[in-house]
C-alpha cells in the first residue's frame, strides 16, 4: 500500500508565473522513510503544502493514506503530523502548555494527553525545561519541541521539513536517533532536508526533485545502484541537479 500517491501534480504561482511543480507523479510506500530532496526552489515545500491540504494544485490527484486531500483535507490532517521548517510554537507559553494546547486541538485530553507529553518530553530530553517559556529555549530545544508537537497524536504519516535546521550536533543526533526508532515502529515518514548525510543515514527511499519535476525516485539502494560512479548521496545529488547556485 502507498501512503502517498501524487499523480500528474502541477502548481503554478500567479506571481511568479513559472511552475513550482510540473506534472509530478510520486508514490511513497507504507513504512518508508522517504527523503524528498532537491535544491532551493525545486518544489519540495509546495509539494508538502499540497500534501497537507494547505494548497490546492492546479492539476493532478493527491491521495494520502487513501484519502483524497483536495476533497477531504481535514481527514488527512487528522492522520498526519507535520513539523514545519519554521518553529511553529507559542513563545510565551511553556513547553508543556504548548503541548497541552496542541494536543487538545488534536482531540487528546486527560491522562492520555499527559502521558504522551511526559513520554515525549523525556524522549527528547526536555523534562527539566517543561515549565519554561519557549522564548527562553535554545534553537535545538525549540526544534525538538516543534517535532514533539507533530507527534503527539501518533500520526500514521509524519512530514518533517528540515527538522534539524540550526541545531547542534547533540540535538541532531537525538532527533535522528528518534526517527530511526520511529522508522522501526513502521510509521511512514517524509523527510525533506538539505543535509544529505542525514538522508543517507535514515531514508529507505528517496526522491530528487528539481524545477518542479521528479528526477529520480525509488529505494535509496536502487537509486544509488543506478549511479555506481557516485560515492555518496551528495555526489549523486550534484550529478542530478548540477552545481549551479539556485538562490
Amino acid at each position, binding site marked *: 500500500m502507498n501512503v502517498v500517491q501524487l499523480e500528474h501534480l502541477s502548481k503554478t504561482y500567479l506571481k511568479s508565473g513559472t511552475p513550482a511543480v510540473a506534472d509530478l507523479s510520486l508514490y511513497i510506500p507504507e513504512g518508508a522513510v522517504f527523503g524528498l530532496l532537491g535544491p532551493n526552489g525545486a518544489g519540495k515545500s509546495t509539494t508538502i503544502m499540497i500534501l497537507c491540504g494547505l494548497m490546492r494544485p492546479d492539476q493532478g490527484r493527491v491521495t494520502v493514506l487513501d484519502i483524497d486531500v483536495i476533497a477531504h483535507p481535514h481527514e488527512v490532517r487528522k492522520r498526519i503530523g507535520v513539523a514545519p521548517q519554521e518553529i511553529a*510554537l507559542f513563545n510565551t507559553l511553556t513547553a508543556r502548555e504548548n503541548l497541552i494546547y496542541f494536543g487538545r486541538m*488534536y482531540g487528546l485530553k486527560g491522562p492520555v494527553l499527559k502521558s504522551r507529553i511526559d513520554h515525549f518530553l523525556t524522549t527528547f530530553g526536555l523534562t527539566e525545561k517543561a515549565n519554561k517559556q519557549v522564548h527562553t529555549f535554545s534553537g535545538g530545544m525549540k526544534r525538538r519541541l516543534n517535532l514533539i508537537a507533530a507527534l503527539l497524536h501518533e500520526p500514521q504519516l509524519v512530514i518533517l521539513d528540515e527538522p534539524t535546521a540550526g541545531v547542534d550536533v547533540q540535538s541532531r543526533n537525538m532527533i535522528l536517533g528518534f526517527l530511526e526508532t520511529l522508522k522501526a515502529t513502521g510509521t511512514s515518514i517524509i523527510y525533506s532536508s538539505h543535509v544529505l548525510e542525514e538522508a543517507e543515514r535514515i531514508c529507505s527511499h528517496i526522491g530528487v526533485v528539481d524545477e518542479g519535476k521528479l528526477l529520480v525516485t525509488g529505494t535509496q539502494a536502487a537509486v544509488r545502484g543506478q549511479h555506481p560512479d557516485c560515492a555518496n548521496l551528495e555526489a549523486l545529488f550534484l550529478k542530478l541537479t548540477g552545481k549551479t547556485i539556485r538562490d
Partner: protein
Amino acid sequence: MLIRDPGGLVLIFMMPLALVVVMALVQDAPFRDYQELKIDVLLVDMDRDSLGNKIRKSFEAAGQVHLVEESDSVVARQKVHSGEYKAAIILNPEVSSTLRRKTRQLIARVFTKFGMDADNSDSLQIPTIQLKVLVDPAIKVNYRQNLTSGIEKIIANVQTSWLLDELQEQLSEGKENTEKIEFDLSQIAAVDQRYAAEKKSVGLMTNSVQHNVPAWTMFAMFFILYPLAGNFINEREGGSMLRLRLIAGSQFAVITGKFLFYFVVCLLQFLMLIAVGVYIMPLLGLDRLVLGDSPMLILLTACCVAMAATGYGTLIAVYFKTAQQALSFGSVSVVILSAIGGVWIPIYVMPEILQTISRFSPMSWGLESFNDLFLRQAHFGSILPNILRLLGFALVTLAASVLIHNSRTVS
C-alpha cells in the same frame, strides 16, 4: 499568554483607565462652563440707585455670575480687554431715574388716552435707555448671550415692577389710606423645566463623567484591535498559526476562539471603567457616574459593543498581512470612528454632513444606547435598533474574518 504580557495588560487595562480619568478631568471645566461655572463680571455702578441693586440681587439669586464692583469705567474696560474679567456692566449716572421717568411717561400717556387725570408735567422725549456691556473677545458666545439676556430680563422685571408701582400711585392719587400692594412677579408665570425621560426623571444633566466614561470606554473597547491584531499577526509570523492550520478542524474554531477571548477582555474593560466612573471619579472631585436603573440592559449593550469591537479587531487582524499595516490602519480608523461617533464631541454640534456620517459609526450606536440608558431611562424597545446595528456589525465583521482566514488557509 496575556497574563505573561505586562505590556499587553497595561495597554488593555491601565491605558484606558488613564485615558478615561484624564479626559473626564480635562473636560470637566468645559462641561461646567455650560452648567455651573461662576464667572466674575465687573459692575461699574455710576447710577447708585435702584437698578444697580436689582442687578446685584438678581445675579446673586441666579448664582451664575459673581459681580465685582469697579468704580472706574475706563479701568473696567482695560480689565476686560486684558482678559482679567470676562465682562463688565456699565450703569451710567441717572439710568434708574431715567427709567423711572420713562415709566411714568408711559402711564401718563395711557391715562390721558382713556380720559383719566394724569401727571403730564414731564413731556420731554426720553431716548431709549441703554446699558453698556463690555465683553472679552475671547468669551464664549453662550456666555455673552446669557449675560445679555439676563440683564434684559432684569430691566424688564424692573420696568414692569415700576409700571405697577406708578399705576398704583396714579390711581390712588387723592385717596386717603391707600396701602400699596407689593407684587411678586415671579409668581405670575414660571418655566417648569423637566427632563424628557421615558420613566421617572433622574434629574441629571450630562456632565464630564457622564459623557466621557461611556464614550472613552467604547474607544478603549474598540482599541482591543491593537492587542488582538498584534497577537494574531505575531502568531502568523511566529509560525504557531501555521501549526493551527495544520491541525484538523475548521479555522472557524480558531477565529471564534480568539473572538470570544477578546470579547471577554472587552467586557472586563467595560466593567472596570464603569467602576472607575462610579467609585474613583468622585474621589477625584468629579461627579459620580449615574447608571440609571436598567443594569441588564446596560450589560446587554456592553456585550453588543464588545462584540462589535472584537469583530472589527478580528477583521483588521485577519485582513492585513503585517503588524505595521494592521496597527496603523486600525488605530487611525478607531480614532476616525470615535470622532464621527460622538466620543470627542457630541454629535449634535457637528456639521450636518458629519451628523449623517456618524450614523454609520458603531461607536455612535453604542454611545447613543448608553446615553439612553443612563440619562433617559430608556426601555428595551428604545435601544433595540442600536443593539441590532451593533450585532449586525459584529456578525458581518466576524463572518468576513472567517471567510478571509479560510481563503488564506488553503491557497
